[in-house]
């Protein structure tokens, strides 16, 4: 381990002359790395907001990017279990293996919700360590940004001061934005919603909204018509004000249920790039809140 670290440090300056290569598994972490890293990092986002992060192919282009990465920033909590291990294995990049400073898992720095009480595939595609969609709560973004700032400073000491100053600047702007969002979001408290997948657990938890129905019969299992009909019947008893889905999810189930229940179906951006307004992390939450507030006046 120590030898590896020594090797790593010896090897680092060669690449540190150029910008630090950051491989972000999801667009939200690419955006965050951009906020903290600025011009000192070169960021590659492995996925876009139009792709389901659970189901990504371990494409050759991703292996090529992983090969040159100095820092890998991923969610963890098994979100990328179907593809990230292949990239790490095939790329032959010793600096970004799990357990080393070059490997950063955001989920390690926040408290995960919905940790399953039992692990059985009969319950669908469950994540043993909890729900991995942590970035939908802006408080988690702040926590991860602090940790990411520290990590960037650790692996690129030459620019540590710049990372810290950008990290502090981001935290200040983020805190101000959160205060603004919190005030605006007051009317959303206790509002009931139906969701397609548990993608927004942390968002709804932050806004203290209530989930009354999930369109997927089990996590990761496609909504089938029979189950949707039961959900529609259930919404007669416990009505929801809106149906939420992520931009990458198929619109059909949410639209069908929404028209059946006479409520709006919202395509939330889910992550940076999910729609035209969600160009960065601030835009992501601005647009999400605007859509929610519009649907629940």
């Amino acid at each position, binding site marked *: *381990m120590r030898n*590896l670290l020594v*090797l*790593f440090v010896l*090897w680092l300056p060669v690449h540190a002359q150029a910008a630090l290569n950051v491989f972000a598994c999801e667009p939200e972490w690419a955006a965050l790395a951009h906020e903290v890293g600025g011009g000192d990092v070169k960021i590659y986002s492995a*996925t*876009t907001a*139009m*792709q*389901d992060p659970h*189901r*990504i*192919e*371990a*494409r*050759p*282009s991703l*292996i*090529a*990017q992983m*090969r040159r990465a100095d820092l890998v920033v991923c969610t963890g909590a*098994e979100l990328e*279990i*179907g*593809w*990230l*291990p*292949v990239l790490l*294995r*095939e*790329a*032959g*990049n*010793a*600096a970004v*293996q799990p357990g080393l400073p070059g490997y950063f898992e955001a989920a*390690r*720095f*926040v408290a995960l919700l919905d940790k399953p009480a039992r692990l059985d*595939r009969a319950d*669908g*595609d469950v994540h043993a360590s909890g729900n991995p969609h942590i970035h939908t709560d802006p*408080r988690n973004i*702040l*926590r*991860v940004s*602090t*940790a990411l700032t*520290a990590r960037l400073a650790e692996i690129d000491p030459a620019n540590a001061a710049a990372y810290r100053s950008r990290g502090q600047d981001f*935290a200040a702007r983020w*805190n101000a934005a*959160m*205060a603004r969002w*919190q005030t605006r979001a007051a009317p959303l408290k206790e509002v009931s919603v139906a969701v397609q997948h548990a993608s927004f657990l942390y968002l709804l938890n*932050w806004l203290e909204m209530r989930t009354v129905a999930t369109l997927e019969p089990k996590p*990761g*299992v*496609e909504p089938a018509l029979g189950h949707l009909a039961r959900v529609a019947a259930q919404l007669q008893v416990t009505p929801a004000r809106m149906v939420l889905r992520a931009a*990458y999810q*198929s619109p059909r189930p949410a639209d069908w249920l929404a028209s059946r229940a006479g409520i709006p179906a919202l395509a939330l951006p889910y992550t940076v790039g999910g729609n035209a307004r969600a160009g960065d992390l601030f835009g992501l939450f601005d647009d999400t809140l605007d859509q929610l507030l519009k649907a629940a006046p």
Partner: protein
Amino acid sequence: MLRPALIAAAIVAAFPAYADSGLDALRAELRAMKSSYEARIQALEARLEKPESPAAPAEPLPQQTAAAPAGNHFNPDISLILQGRYAHLQDAGERRIAGFLPSGGHGADAARGFSLDGTELVMSASVDPYFRGHLILALQDEAAEIEEAWFQTTGLGNGLSLKGGRFRSGLGYQNEQHPHAWDFADNTLMYRALFGEGYGNDGVQLKWVAPTDLFMEFGAEAGRGASFPGTDRNTNGAGSVALFGHLGGDVGASHSWRAGVSYLHAHARDRDSELEDMNGVHADTLFSGKSKTWMADVVWKWAPNGNAREQNFKFSAEYFRRSERGSLLCEDNSAEDSACTGLDDAYRSHQSGFYAQGVYQFMPRWRTGYRYDRLNPGTVDFGANSAFLPATDTQPTRHSLMLDYSPSEFSRLRLQYSKDKSMEGQNENQWFVQYVHSLGSHGAHKF
């Protein structure tokens, strides 16, 4: 080959945390649980006393959460593949591909009716910070075959990795895939003719990925070379050498591709193949010499915006040329009223073939696919044995059509129809119904 008792021992050995000291481990786990709950309760109490303001700016630096207490977490990731089928086939006896020396392997003894198609136990884990290990056992009645058992370096860096042990060669595209990852119920004719199932070897592999935007991977392997087209030769040194290179990349957000070239050089000594001689009688032949195989492969995948969940398409094709040179002995079977007289003479062959297949997921869970196989027996020169062994002008071909349904990522049901003209004088309609289930830890598949 292992006896069942040995398999049981191997499996027990794979669970040391339980097998060695089950009770102690349980006690330790209980203690760990107890202390973790106490800690959590204290944390909750602390939070109750001091209500958290939702956007507390002065939050301390987040600490990386400690990994779960060591219970069975040191045990390898284990997954089990259950695969079986119903096959409606003609009673075609030995299923030899016309014009090709039989390679043995799973394709040759296609069972009719219901059968288990493959049961595989896969285990993998990090060995230490420098290596990871991987084992694939194929379980059969009264036998367990070690399909793969290798280590791979994780710490070399600079795009290098070294693999050692028994592994599937990095040749071609389909070669590293085990049957559960195939898109059809049976093997391609090309791989059946070349290797039986896929080319595995005991040896070492060095692989390098170039630090470029375009994916470039180069690999070299040297090994015992005991499997077809080579044989075990009881010598030092390497019996086979393989080289491969792959390029790959994306075109826009929706398209990705990979293409490559591979070369395999193997030595055979007294490689046993059963043929039919001029009189239609079973003849045993032994080949000694060199076998050279060139392969080219291409894969192209499409998914709208790169989101494969709803719809996606995958095209793959591979082509090979093989030339073998040496001598062939046709064992004397004249006692059974047949042709061979035990003559050992020069043998030369140049053969080729390809497959091309497309698989389309037209809606979540449902995929359909078409595959075309064609082999060219090319020129086969039996030397003086030409008097006893027939040449063929049959070009083996096969059309396959499949439909599969995957209730989840872990299960798949498949229906397949094939029009098989790969055997001499046969035109067979084949039907397969197959299931492929994978239990246990979530496997990650290569591109």
